[in-house]
Structures are given as C-alpha cells and as structure tokens.
C-alpha cells in the first residue's frame, strides 16, 4: 500500500539557519501521526514544508505516491489541507464565515456552494446561525471549528494540524479534539498533528515523532509513551514535565 505521506531527508533552511535537518517519516493512509518537541524544534516548519509554505532545501515529499514539485498544483490542495495553531490569526478579519468557506469553493469551481457550506458548518457543529458572522464575533473554539470546516470543505484526504488546541481553554480543547476524531472517523482522513502537549498527542495519535533542533529524536507509538517505554532522555524529560509541578523537584 502506498503511504499517504512519505517524507525523505527533508531539509528546510531559512537563510543560514537550518530549521529542519534531514527528517524522514512515512504516514499510512488513515493513520494519525503526532509530532512533539519543544518550541522551535521545527514541528510547524515540517507541516508548512509539506503544505508548500516553507522553502524546501533538500529531500522529497510524496503524497499518495506522487512526488511534489516545489510549485504545488491545484489538485494538491484538494488532497492536503491544514489547520493552524492560532484561531485568532487564521481567519481573515474582514470576511464572514460564509465568505471564508466560499473562497475555496470558488477557487476550485465547485457548483453547489450553498449546500456544501451548510453541510460543512453542520459537520463541525456550528449551526447556520454562525454563517454570516465575522470572526471577531466568534469564540476561540468556534473559530477553530470554522478553520476545520474550511479545511474540510475541499474534501482532502490528509489534514495537517498545527497545535489546533493550544490556544484554547481545556474545556474547549476537549470539544475540538472530539470533533477532530469524529471527522477523521467519518471521512477516513489521515492526520499529521503537532502538539507540545504529550497528553494531547497520545490521545489523538497512533504513532509520534519526538523532535529537537530540527531533527528527529525518536519515533514512538502512543502505547510506548503510556508505558513510559522511551529510549531517549529528552523524551523522558518531556514526560516528567508533563505531569505537573513536583514540590521536591
């Protein structure tokens, strides 16, 4: 079976700075794959490189068996979509939800826009009451739902999620995570999800990669992590830290 996403020795540099250093990974269709690591370790850069938003200096990316050019085709964007970290920054401040959702349909020339918009809003649990609101009239969680709806409206097979809940309250986080799981199940999507929160990643993903300074530290399954079965000290430290403050420490 061809992997949904195959990355081989991917390298991204910003001027002289190496943000991603020869990272390789494969994600099977329908799999949910996690990326963890401290701030600046290159997690977002990896996703952006796949999406064509970061300059690729070396290596290859294959999506559903097809190698990507530097210039992405329109067809590519129907396979791969992305949800960004900051719900306050990823929606155009001057556009209504309706307009936001219409845009991808217009670009790709879909005909039955009305039906699709209504369905997409339903799918993310926002009634049509939200359709003509501006983003500033929405809460963080609602915004993130709109962003997810926007990503899904083109019916991609791969969804890239860059810390989709880190800006949200814990209670809202749960709702969004649940929503993501639902749509994944319903649409048989492949997820690549970034988070700095180990708990979130293990909750959502089957396998995960730990990153540091733009390189891979190790590849683990969620079960490994739950069983504290990790190979590297760096990962172990992350694990300990995620358990909260210990007074004696």
């Amino acid at each position: 079976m061809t992997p949904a996403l195959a990355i081989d020795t991917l390298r991204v540099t910003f001027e002289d700075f190496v943000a991603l250093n020869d990272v390789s990974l494969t994600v099977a269709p329908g799999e949910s794959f996690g990326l963890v690591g401290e701030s600046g370790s290159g997690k977002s850069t990896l996703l952006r490189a796949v999406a064509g938003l970061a300059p690729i200096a070396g290596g290859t990316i294959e999506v559903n068996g097809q190698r990507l050019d530097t210039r992405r085709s329109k067809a590519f964007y129907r396979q791969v979509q992305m949800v960004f970290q900051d719900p306050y920054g990823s929606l155009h401040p001057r556009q209504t939800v309706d307009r936001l959702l219409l845009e991808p349909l217009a670009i790709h020339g879909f005909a039955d826009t009305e039906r699709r918009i209504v369905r997409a809003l339903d799918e993310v649990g926002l009634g049509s009451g939200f359709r003509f609101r501006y983003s500033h009239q929405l809460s963080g969680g609602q915004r993130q739902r709109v962003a997810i709806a926007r990503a899904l409206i083109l019916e991609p097979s791969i969804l890239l999620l860059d810390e989709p809940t880190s800006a949200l309250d814990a209670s809202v986080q749960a709702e969004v995570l649940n929503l993501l799981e639902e749509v994944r199940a319903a649409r048989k999507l492949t997820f690549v999800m970034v988070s700095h929160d180990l708990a979130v990643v293990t909750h959502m993903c089957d396998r995960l990669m730990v990153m540091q300074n733009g390189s891979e530290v190790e590849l683990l399954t969620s079960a490994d992590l739950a069983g504290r079965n990790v190979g590297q000290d760096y990962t172990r430290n992350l694990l300990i830290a995620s358990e909260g403050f210990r007074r004696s420490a």
Partner: protein
Amino acid sequence: MSTLLEVEDLRVSFPTRTGVVEAVRGVSFTLGRERLGIVGESGSGKSQTGRAIMGLTPEHGQITAKKLEFSGIDLLKASKAQRRALRGNRIAMVLQDPKYSLNPVMTIGRQIVETLRAHEKVSGAEARKRALDMLAAVQIRDPERVFDLYPHEVSGGMGQRAMIAMMLVADPELLIADEPTSALDVTVQLEVLGILNRLVAERGMGLIFISHDLRLVSSFCDRVIVMYAGRIVEELPAGELAHAKHPYTQGLLNCMPRIGADRHPLPVLDRKPEWAL
C-alpha cells in the same frame, strides 16, 4: 498565620457602549503568607481580580469592595501616591509573557535597578549589586552578562526569570503572578515555578498564582480558588482537588486528556446557566 490581604465582595466593572461589563462580581478571600491559586477559564475575571489588588485596573474601570485591605492599609482609600509606593515595594506582580512585559529598549539590569531605586535611596553601585544578587537568586548563571542584555536577547525562560527578579528585588510581601509560565515550554515552566516556589518559601511572601491550568495550580499551591464568570464557585485546599464538589471544577479536571487513559471521546464541560448566578 497572619493575614496579609483581605478581600471582601470585590467588584470590577467596565462601562462599555453595549452596557456595563462586570468582570469581577463579588469576590472574597483572605490570604496569609501562603500560596493561593486562582483558576478558571478565559474571561472568568482572574486577571482583573489580581489587577484590582495591584491598583492597575484600567482607568475607566470601576472598583468597589466591602473591604480591600493589605496588611492593615485600606487600599480603596489610599491615595494614588500611597498605592504607587506600595506597588513593586510591598506588592509585586509578574506578568504572563516576558516578550511583551519587559521594556524592549532597556537593558534587563536597568529595569531591575529601576524598581529598586523607585522605592529606596540606594547608590548606583549598591543597586547594581543588589540587582546582580537578585539575578543570581533566580538562578541565572551569568548575572553580569545578563544584566547588560536587552530583553530580545534572552530566551523566554530567562526573560521570565528577569521579570521575577525585577519584581522581587525590592522584597515585596505579596506577589501576584498572573499566568507567569503559560508562555513558556513545559520544561522551562517547571524551572521557573521551582524558582518561585523557593523564593516564596525563603522570603515568607504571600503568593497569588493565577493560571488556567487546574492541575498545575493544584500541584503548586496550597489553596485553590476556582472562578467562573467573575465569581468564586469553589475554594479548596490543593490536595483535595480530586474531591472537588462543584461540577464546573470537576468538568475542568475531567476534560483534559491524560497519558495512558484511553477516553474517546473526551468528556466535555456542559456549562449550566445557574453557575453564573
């Protein structure tokens, strides 16, 4: 334990064009030389509570309280100058994000010295020495170097330490920390908390620790206040978090994913209108 701060029926409201927004609606608590955590979701009024105590409520905001007393001083009656003299000297506050809360065009050293000199008449050399000591106390390895650095030249964790040093250099009795670590990486977060913990213990300060992370607060503080929509819905000792009674508190605890616990879907918080009453 002597009481340091007494708050009774604190209310903060903001007149806006669409009506009056009540950010804090009758909050009461007392604080001794202990660590008090305030948790609650975004917009629940945690920060405004802290700022009201500091006297940093935005100008058009209105504060009322039956009692707002800091070690015998009635803060509501105190003049502007008196309050200013208290701030930084006896009550201090650490803000969330060092990236925004340090003055970008001043060296870290100068900003620390400035606090000191605003409250005490000390010579330049003396002030510098005390600032360096303070930097060392927040476990900065090379204080001499960091003293002359600008905020953008240090990492987030380092900046937050500098912020703490700046706020503690005049030896306050009460420290309000408003989400002091939520902008930091998990590993760094713990280090900073460790420092705070030690300073509070050593200097015998009172601490109000504001955060939205229930688990973090309960592991760090002695007592926890849970706020919802400007009110306190529950107050409990940190250790008894597991036995929280209020459904809001319970919901907050439950909805977080846990490593190893396989809960699909996650339980979600079902807000009840009566909580806000």
